[in-house]
């Protein structure tokens, strides 16, 4: 054995003597976890605030219903194409500008909703629908849908969503929530390599929701956020902040050569079973040829957006009728998107014909109720004990 070999062996033996183990690592990490948060640069606080913000989910849900409703509206307005869509990350709204892609539903088979955000306004397009842009004004709670082929401009009111908090208010709220950590258990998963890039990954879990956030370690900004609830999954991808955008793209003014239409609005405070039943009826009668849809999940609604248009064309409705029915259809979606019952709702309408009084298609448990409400294919409703629920 050469002297060099001997030296290497002795060095390794010395290392083994010095040893390792969980003792030191655990002691250090326990002390760090239990200590008061260390003051970090502002960017770090910003990230923490975004990550820990449980309000993201609530606002996402709010925004998603706007989107879901607008899908119907667009289609019903006879745009010839369009679908519109979702807003996920309210905290970034007060960043100067943001762009992102939103995917709703199982990964790999969704339409992509592309959002450009400037202050409280969003310009939105959907990949499977060409020719329609949606501009959302969250301050005035108003939407302007521009259908370029037909040169129509439609204003839609969004009542009852309440004031959407601005960025600063949201951050303050997040800091409080971070400190309390009541709703979410946060798991820091450290650095992970995905497609050759390193991201810091945080997972925030509550009883009914998991939010995963991928953060670019260089910029300390989130690049991807996945929100998963029992009934829905939303992925917000390719987040980019402070992209240079033309302010005129966010104008709520109607272009000179466009014809203005009024579509009324959706009242987000109103969330009733009867509105939902009306939505199901319209869905089956007008859109699905007498059958209930395969799915009422948001992702599938987006994916099937063009189908709505087609159905309305075949129904030979006037523009005014289309608008009225669109509003009624959208109003009922508030019921499932802002579901106020206990636990989850269940949908089983796939393949069921409208008028089938023996087959349950939807059931849910109202808040503080011991029985469940079950909606059947003929749209009558029964109160059912938990033991007798559909399997």
């Amino acid at each position, binding site marked *: 054995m050469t*002297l*060099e070999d001997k*030296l*290497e062996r*002795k*060095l*390794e*033996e*010395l*290392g083994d*003597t*010095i*040893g*390792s183990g969980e*003792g*030191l*690592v655990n*002691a*250090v*990490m326990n*002390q*760090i*976890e239990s200590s008061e948060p*260390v*003051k*970090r*640069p502002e*960017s*770090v606080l910003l*990230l*923490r605030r975004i*990550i820990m913000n449980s309000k993201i989910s609530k606002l996402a849900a709010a925004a998603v219903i706007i989107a879901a409703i607008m899908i119907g509206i667009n289609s019903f307005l006879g745009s010839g194409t369009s679908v519109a869509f979702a807003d996920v990350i309210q905290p970034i709204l007060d960043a100067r500008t943001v762009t992102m892609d939103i995917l709703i539903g199982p990964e790999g088979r969704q339409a992509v909703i592309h959002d450009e955000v400037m202050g409280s306004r969003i310009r939105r397009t959907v990949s499977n629908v060409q020719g329609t842009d949606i501009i959302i004004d969250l301050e005035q709670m108003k939407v302007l849908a521009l259908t370029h082929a037909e040169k129509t401009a439609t204003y839609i009111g969004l009542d009852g969503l309440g004031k959407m908090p601005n960025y600063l208010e949201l951050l303050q709220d997040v800091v409080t929530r971070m400190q309390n950590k009541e709703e979410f258990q946060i798991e*820091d*998963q*450290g*650095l992970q390599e995905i497609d050759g890039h*390193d991201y*810091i990954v*945080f997972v925030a879990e509550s009883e009914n929701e998991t939010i995963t956030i991928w*953060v670019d*370690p*260089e910029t*300390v900004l989130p690049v991807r956020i996945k929100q998963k609830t029992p009934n829905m999954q939303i992925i917000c991808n390719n987040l980019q902040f402070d992209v240079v955008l033309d302010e005129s793209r966010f104008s709520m003014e109607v272009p000179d050569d466009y014809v203005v239409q009024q579509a009324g609005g959706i009242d987000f405070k109103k969330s009733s079973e009867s509105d939902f039943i009306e939505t199901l009826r319209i869905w089956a009668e007008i859109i699905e040829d007498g059958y209930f849809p395969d799915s009422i999940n948001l992702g599938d609604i987006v994916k099937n957006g063009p189908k709505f248009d087609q159905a309305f064309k075949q129904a030979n409705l006037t523009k005014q009728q289309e608008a009225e029915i669109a509003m009624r259809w959208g109003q009922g979606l508030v019921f499932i998107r802002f579901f106020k019952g206990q636990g989850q709702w269940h949908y089983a309408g796939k393949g069921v014909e409208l008028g089938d009084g023996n087959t349950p298609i939807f059931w849910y448990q109202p808040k503080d109720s011991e029985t469940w409400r079950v909606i059947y294919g003929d749209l009558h409703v029964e109160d059912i004990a938990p033991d007798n629920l559909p399997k």
Partner: protein
Amino acid sequence: MQSDEKLVNACLAGSNKAFEVLVRRYERPIRAVALGVLGDFHRAEDAAQDAFIRAWEKLPGLRNREAFGPWITKIARRSAISIAQRQVRIASGNCRLVQAIEKPDGRLESDKQRLLAAVMKLRREQRQLIMLRYFSRHSVKDIAQITGRSVGTITKQLSRARGKLKTQFERAGK
């Protein structure tokens, strides 16, 4: 294998998990540094823990983030010296910071103590490489990724560091 720089960035972005990776990576080198000063495993453990906590607190002030290894080594040395000084004050009369480490209970055997002392006398970059290679048992490729340097550079620097240790070894053997 994530570089130190990336892990530090992740820590500063709020990831405690990233810091845990750094603690695991450097626990042996930091213990070794503390042991070199204190000559006692138990106190070295305290000094190492103190060093990591201090590093966590001072992390935003680390400008050269790829130099996390040498930086925390310095912190560990200071922590160890501070503990030793407190000990000296308590046990007045004993002014030596580094005592002979020959007792089996909590102390290194003499030949290992000499080797450790020799490692501690190396230049800081060389010392870091030796500790990562032989104490933490990282491969040359891993060390290249940790430090953000090329495999060739690490190989050369390790060879030089071993050369210096060998010289010291030979001298000690005479």
